[in-house]
Structure formats: C-alpha cells, structure tokens
C-alpha cells in the first residue's frame, strides 16, 4: 500500500524525470521521445520505491537487478538514475555526446551502474533469465533478490523473446518480473498495424507466466502488481503496463511519429513549459 505522501513524491520524481528527459534530448539533438516519457512513472516507482538498490554502492551484491531490454528508451533510465543519486543530474546534458558516459544506448562499461548494455532489441529478457538462473544455482529458492526486465511491446516482434519466455516459464523463475511498456507504438506505426501482438496476455499465460495488466501511470497499480508478482512462488511474472507514449506532453502523446525522434528547441521549450505547470500540483526540482 502506498501512502498519499509517497504517491506525491513519486509523481514529483516522475515529473522531474520527464523534464530531464526533455533536457537530455534537447542537448543530444537525437534520440527517442515517446517511450521515455511514457515510462517515467514506472521508472519513478522503480527507483524511488520498488528497487532494492543503493546509489552509493552500485555494485552492492544483494541489490535487485534491472535489465533495460529496449535500450533506446535509456534517457528515462539515465534520468531516473541521476535523480536517484547515481550521478549528477547535470551530466544528463551530455547524452550521446562524444566520450560521454551516457551512450546513445546504455553501455555497462561506460556507465558501470547500468547492469547490462542494450540496444539491439530482444536480448534483455534472456539476460534477466540467465541472471535469475544463476541466482537460483547459488541460493536456491531462499533468494530475496528480484530481477526486473523492462521490455518494449514492439520489441516482442523479436523471436528471441519467445525463446526466453519459454525457458523462464519452464524454469518457474519466481524472482523474475518482466514489465512490458504496452504503449502500442513502434517506429513504423502502431504495433497492431506493424505486427499484431494481441492477445498478448494469453500468449504469456500459455507459456506459464503469471500475467497482470495494469495502468502504467497509476502508482497504486504499479505497486500492487509488483507486490503480487513477488508473492507468486511458482512462476515468473509479467506486468503488461498500458502506457501513453509521450505522456505528459500533449503534443507528443499517442503519436507513433514521436517514437524515434527528439523535439526541436521550440518543441522542447513548449514541452518543458507544459511539464512545469502539470496540473499545477507538482513542484519539481526543475523549478
């Protein structure tokens, strides 16, 4: 259960993350806009509530692991990490610049606080399955470590995911939690036009996964779904989080055209203005 105060904090952090995403994209001049804005609430929930982690000790052995499979939404990962204290928020403005730690797609050697390098789609869930398998070999079922894998919905076109889903289900990896950003868009269009995915929940269920569908912008729903996933003992869990791509900026919302491009300076300024005044209720660090 989340207290109102906590929800307020998470909302504020999500707003900070969104503004930082815009800042970073403006500085980079390239990158993806819709996915990072749509996932800001989930990243806020993860980094400020759900994850067992310590920004001061990124290599703490007992930390939960977060694998970002769809590496192109990394501005939201970087922004969440910066606001959580992994590195200075100011550094976000080096996104995609030469010699920056914030590579265009995350690289674990450039920024050792990210668990794995990603970008090419479809291989993150396999890596998370491997991590959970290794954990089970070492600690059996007594482990209280959780392995989160964030995936895009368009990414599920990659067949390798289904290899990993099959293995995860067979192995009953109870400490594995996949979260799908179900925002219905990919670069070339809406997912159901490019490559239909429905009925998505049934597909995962038939591979022996525990399936939940939630509103990916509701902190109560995110929190409740992760709690349930942790309580499932004989299956891995998938949370299909329905999100609005571009969420928070009216001009960007629900348009697949914003999947893979950054805002211009003018568009970015307007976006920041809108985020600053969001509902008039959230005062972020940005002000």
């Amino acid at each position, binding site marked *: 259960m989340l207290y109102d105060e906590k929800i307020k904090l998470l909302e504020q952090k999500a707003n900070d993350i969104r503004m930082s995403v815009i800042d970073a994209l403006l500085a980079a001049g390239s990158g993806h806009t819709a996915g990072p804005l749509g996932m800001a609430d989930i990243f806020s929930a993860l980094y400020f509530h759900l994850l067992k982690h310590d920004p001061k000790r990124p290599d703490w052995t007992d930390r939960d*692991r977060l*694998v970002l499979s769809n590496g192109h939404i990394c501005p939201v990962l970087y922004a969440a990490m910066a606001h959580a204290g992994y590195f200075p928020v100011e550094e976000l403005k080096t996104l995609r610049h030469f010699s920056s730690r914030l590579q265009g797609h995350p*690289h*674990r*050697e450039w920024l050792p606080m990210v*668990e*794995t*390098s*990603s*970008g*090419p789609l*479809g*291989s993150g869930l*396999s*890596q*998370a*399955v*491997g*991590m*959970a*398998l*290794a*954990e089970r*070999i*070492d600690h059996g079922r007594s482990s209280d470590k959780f392995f989160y894998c964030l995936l895009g919905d368009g990414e599920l076109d990659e*067949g*390798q995911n289904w*290899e*990993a889903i*099959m*293995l995860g289900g067979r192995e009953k990896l109870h400490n594995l939690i996949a979260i799908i950003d179900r925002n219905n868009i990919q670069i070339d269009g809406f997912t159901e036009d490019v490559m239909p995915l429905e009925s998505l929940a049934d597909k995962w269920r038939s591979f022996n996964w525990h399936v939940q569908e939630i509103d990916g912008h509701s902190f109560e729903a995110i929190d409740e779904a992760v709690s349930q996933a942790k309580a499932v003992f004989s299956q891995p869990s998938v949370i299909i989080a329905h999100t609005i791509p571009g969420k928070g900026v009216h001009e960007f919302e629900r348009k697949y055209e914003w999947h893979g491009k950054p805002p211009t300076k003018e568009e970015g300024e307007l976006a920041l203005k809108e985020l600053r005044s969001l509902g008039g209720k959230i005062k972020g660090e940005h002000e």
Partner: protein
Amino acid sequence: MLVESQKLNPKLLKLDVEQVPIRKGFGEGLLGAGEKDERIVGLCADLTESTQMHLFARKFPQRFIQMGVAEQNLASVASGMAAMGKIPFLTSYAMFSPGRNWEQIRTTICYNDRNVKIVGSHAGVSVGPDGGTHQAIEDIAITRVIPRLAVVVPCDAIEAKKATWQIARWTGPAYLRLAREKSPVVTTEESFFEIGKANILREPAKPRAAIIACGQMVYNALITANDLAATGIEVTVVNLHTIKPLDAETILGVAAKCEAIVTVEEHQKRGGMGSAVAELLVENYPVPMELIGVDDLFGQSGTPQELIEHYGLGVNHIRQAVQRVIARKR
C-alpha cells in the same frame, strides 16, 4: 626434424596413429574444469551428446541448463549468468553458435565483456553427410572480427582438453572451435599448450617455406612436410591453434626465416586463419603466401575424405601450394 621439445605423438607419422574426435577432448576437459571450479555452468542447445557436454551434464545436473533449440537465447542467457559471476560454457553446432546468434555474442557477451565461453562443434566440411547447411566454414571469420573474443582451434583431442582448461581460466569471452570426426592425435599430454602461443612442430635447419595450420589440418600439414622432405624440400610446420590473440612474434619469426608461407585451414579461404596471418604479414613483413581453404563455395554431402579432397584441403593440394610458393620466392 619434429621439434623434440614439443613431445609429439611418437606414432604421429605411422599408419596406426590413434584417431579420436577433437570434441571428445572438450567433453573431458569441461568435466575436469567443472570439478575444479564450481562457477562453471554448462548450457546446450539440444545437442548435449553431439557436443560432448553430456559428461558435464550428468555429473553436475544442478549446473547444467538444457536450452532447447534456441541459440540466440543460449548466448544471452549465458551472458546473464556471467553477470552474476558464473563461467558459462555454451555449446551447439558452430553453424548455429556462433552462426545464428552472432549479434547476441557480439553485444550481450563481448560488448558487455562477459566471461562466457562459446563452443562450436561440427566445424568444417568434414562433418560430411549432413551437407552444406551444417558445415561451418565461416565461423573463424565472424568470430575473430569481434573485439575481445579469443578464438582457439585445437588440433586434436588432447589439445582440445587443454584448451578447455585454459579457456576456463582465461578472463573474458572465448570461442573454441571443434571438429566432429575422429582425427589423428598429434600431441601428447606432455606437449606444450598455451592460448596465444603458436607451436612450431617441425623446424628444419634450412626451411624453404613454412606451413601454418590449425585444427585437424595440422596433421595434414605434418604429413605433407614429411612427404616433401623425402623429395628434398624441407619446410617448417606451425600449429596456430590460437587465431586471436595472434602470436605475431612466432609468425614473424617464421616468415623471416622461411620467406614463404602456406596457410591451411578447414574454413573459407577468405576471412579465416590464413587471412589473419596475411594481415599480420602484409603490415609487417610481406612474403609470398598461398592460402589453402574452401574457395568461396558452400559444402555438400559426402564422406569427410571425399570433401577434404574435393575442396582442395588434402595433402596433395598442400604440397602443390608449397611448391608454388617456393617458386614465387625472390
């Protein structure tokens, strides 16, 4: 003329030389490595017996993951296990791993610098009857271009066993290439083996050329050298079991002494071990070269011997290449 300190198989040049599949040495090596280091885990894409991983799987069922026929998942799951401190060995046919899952190996294993060992069995045309779809003759080319990835091609079962032990202790990603069929045992348990150090197996006082070979072609190279010696042509023979990191010192030394080089591999002529040697020489000490390998063709069904002859990898082909390269010396 054989280098004594290499302690090669005394029956090497005899008709009754022992014949053992190279992959068998891997199976035994992995079992031994697994006993010494419990971080080692085995993953296999439904070919446990073919790749000889069954020995490890039987002994350490808790540390073995049956992956099913899913090579892309195979590579990336191994990467995830390595992220948690395991030393994964993953096996399949070379055609599928590193063939089908090349990008997963490049990104999730090598770009991430994960300590994963990729083992590709059934490499080369000598796989035989299964035909061209199953004959990996491009795998050295596609692995050696990936930064960080070590590439090791043992010449016999004993060397494969030692290579497996050393790869287990080698920090970083590595690819181990194995052949299917029984092949002559060239070395002994006492022979020197170290990843990254080429072995000079035969070294006459006044060599006219050198044959540099890898895998089971090392045996063909030695037989060729022996035949040539009978006609008065002395050649050096090098077992270049590690394609990467390449032993530049030994190769350049041999090139300076012999001034002519023939490379022999059961692989495409372009992009493989011969190309690695050629790249080194052309930048440092160019000498006339002949490359023996499959010349831009796919394989087909046949017996291993038929295929070795058809694709120009036999003893006669090597001998003719040596004669050609000597004729090209200045």
